[in-house]
């Protein structure tokens, strides 16, 4: 039921959970949906031709399970397949390895306070923080969602409505043809497409979700390949349209600079200069910004009473940042210079 302040309630929401061989995690996801303070009208698990019993497990928990005739080949394909069964005003896309805080849906629903709002996303934090990769991602998310994303929200242009958990106005989603698989970052593609048709996207920091992040380098490599190529593909696809969207154009340009030239300088220029100038002091550049990164991280962690965990995880951030830089430089070179566009969707959380 909608409260006087809210236009919509949980009963206006259908959740689509795309799942391919997610038997190990989909039950937690569905249980977190059942525990919502504003339960959705329907949960649709799109069993993308799994062979590990994902569909049966979901069905046993009382949700609708649909199965395409053949594997769709991407998360975007599975989500769009599920969209045809949605009959509510709002649609949520939720990854099958992601659980929600109990009030997450209620808080996201509240963001749809005007007809212009087409999408809303929440705060993302890794569910498990154990390995160096999970710890690095934990710090990266704390930093980005505490500092960058709130600023983007204030200026009305969150860079991405996160693919792991976002809510959309169903008609806006259908007007875009659902989620497109023309890039490997369907969430960014959809967000930038919505901005270009004049729709709004909101970031709701109190709507928290917890995905399982890559725990090993093998999984992280797959995810970073997908994300880095997806980002470059979206820049190439949308650059003309994005130029017409205030603030977003600046944020994208800055992100592209940092993902390409800054990352290359970080990886290549710094050690070369240190060697050529025989000045090992230059290598301090790899960590000299640590206090600047640490401030937003500690603010975010303090709000969640996780300061010890943040401090213990902080060194891992620098490992992940270096790996990130490598994959982004490689993606820029492959996509823009060599014309080798990555098209295969490799699942890896």
């Amino acid at each position, binding site marked *: 039921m909608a409260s006087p302040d809210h236009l919509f309630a949980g009963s206006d929401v259908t959740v689509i959970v795309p799942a391919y061989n997610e038997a190990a995690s989909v039950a937690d996801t569905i249980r977190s949906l059942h525990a919502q303070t504003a339960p959705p009208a329907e949960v649709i698990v799109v069993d993308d031709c799994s062979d590990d019993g994902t569909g049966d497990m979901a069905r046993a928990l009382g949700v609708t399970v649909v199965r395409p005739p053949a594997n769709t080949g991407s998360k975007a394909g599975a989500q769009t397949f599920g969209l045809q069964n949605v009959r509510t005003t709002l649609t949520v896309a939720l990854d099958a390895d992601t659980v929600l805080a109990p009030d997450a849906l209620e808080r996201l629903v509240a963001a749809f306070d005007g007809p212009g709002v087409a999408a809303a996303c929440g705060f993302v934090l890794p569910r498990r923080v154990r390995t160096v990769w999970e710890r690095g991602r934990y710090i990266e998310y704390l930093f980005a969602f505490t500092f960058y994303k709130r600023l983007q929200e204030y200026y009305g242009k969150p860079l991405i409505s996160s693919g792991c958990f976002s809510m959309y106005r169903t008609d806006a989603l259908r007007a875009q043809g659902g989620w497109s698989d023309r890039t490997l*970052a369907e969430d960014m593609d959809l967000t930038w497409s919505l901005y270009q048709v004049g729709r709004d996207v909101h970031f709701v920091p109190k709507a928290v979700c917890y995905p399982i992040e890559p725990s090993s380098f093998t999984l992280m490599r797959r995810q970073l390949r997908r994300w880095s190529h997806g980002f470059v593909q979206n820049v190439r696809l949308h650059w003309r349209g994005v130029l017409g969207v205030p603030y977003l154009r600046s944020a994208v*340009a*800055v992100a592209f*600079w*940092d993902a390409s030239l800054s990352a290359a300088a970080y990886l290549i220029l710094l050690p070369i200069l240190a060697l050529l100038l025989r000045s090992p002091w230059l290598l301090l550049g790899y960590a000299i*910004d640590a206090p600047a990164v640490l*401030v937003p991280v500690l603010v975010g962690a303090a709000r969640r009473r996780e300061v010890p965990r943040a401090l213990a995880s902080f060194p891992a951030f620098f490992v992940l940042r270096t790996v990130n830089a490598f994959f982004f430089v490689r993606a820029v070179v492959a996509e823009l210079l060599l014309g080798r566009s990555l098209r295969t969707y490799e699942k890896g959380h």
Partner: protein
Amino acid sequence: MTAGIPGTGIGGLFYLVSALAMPLRELRSRPRGAKRGSRWSVIAGQVAMASGVIAGMWATGWLLEVALVHARPFLPVGLDPPPSRLWPTATIVAGAGVLAAVLLGVEILRLVIHRGGTGARVLSVLIVTAAAQARVVDAQDAPTFTVLVGGIRDSDRNATLRVEGAFEYPAAPGLRLSAVAGRERVASGAASAGIDRVSLRTAWRPVRRFDVAARVGATRLDGAGGAGGATVVTTGEVRVRWRPALDFRLRRDAVTASPLLVANRVMRTEGRATIQAPVAGPLALRAIAGTAALGSTQDVNHRTSAGGAVLLAVAPAGEVSAQFHEIHFSHASAVGYFAPRVVQTAEVATYLEYETAGSALFVLDGGVGVRRLAAWGLSLGPWGRALRLYALIATPIAPGRELRLELDGEDSAVAADVATAARWRYGSAAVSVRWAMR
């Protein structure tokens, strides 16, 4: 996902500025109603966080300074730490400069692509003027970006490193407009000088054989050895060609082959005309004449040149020629270039262009010959060798992307043109990537 790498590059600076600008934006927009209080609370939080980040950066610099001072006695010889405030200051200044350039570049690109608003109208007027009344319409060709890195080294131990970026926009069929910006560093021993160039260019080719190219720009020249004030000079060029019969060129540029030439602000203002007439079949005659004023802080010298060639077309895009050139200077010079009384060159030259089925282009322009000079007060001396070679390889590396490699070299017993010494040898290489934005 987080696009970009948090903490590195200009993203951190961009969001710091975004945070610090929030109160100003809020005061200007003055939202009303219940949300006003919550907005100010968000602003206070983000501004406080940004202030914390700045304080963290300052504290890092301070701690580094303290640590380096105390560590100095224990450091190995040769591992002296730099001035502790140098890097943080340099990083912030460079970061702010890059951020400003990126944001400005985005706004200019927006004006060019979307052509909306007052700024765009002003820009459109400029484009229309530069395009000689051509109407700006979307062309089928895509805009392109080119990034070039190159270097030159000569026998006088001058070395130049060049970086250049160009954005080219097809404003109309046959008409391309471009903006070029570049940085050079020329060094010789301990002396060095920086040169920054920016220019706007237009190339108009209404029919296959006729084209007009124009360039207007500015060049900033460092003071000698980085000392003294920098100088900004205007540069430009107009070139009209009716191929192969006529080639007329006027240009004004800074001569920057050595730090001394840069320090003396040597400018070349030159006019040059080439006329070619068919004789019989593949045989043609070519006449070349030119005059140049070489101005500097100390004097103005004049160089006149004349030459002729007999050409034999050997392929649709190839020729072999026998050429003779003579150059005169009005007086000797002490500002950094070699200016004998007369230079004579006789050579056999070849020019070849070949394009493969895969659109790779090879260009070769070479000459083998002899050269002699007459120093001031003396008659012409003995002939010495004169070799030159220019090669261009342009190959598509992907749809819409092209890699170019340019090589240029000269080895002469005596120098022609504006060289820094009598015996002259130099080589240059440049690699560039050009990609179309579709």
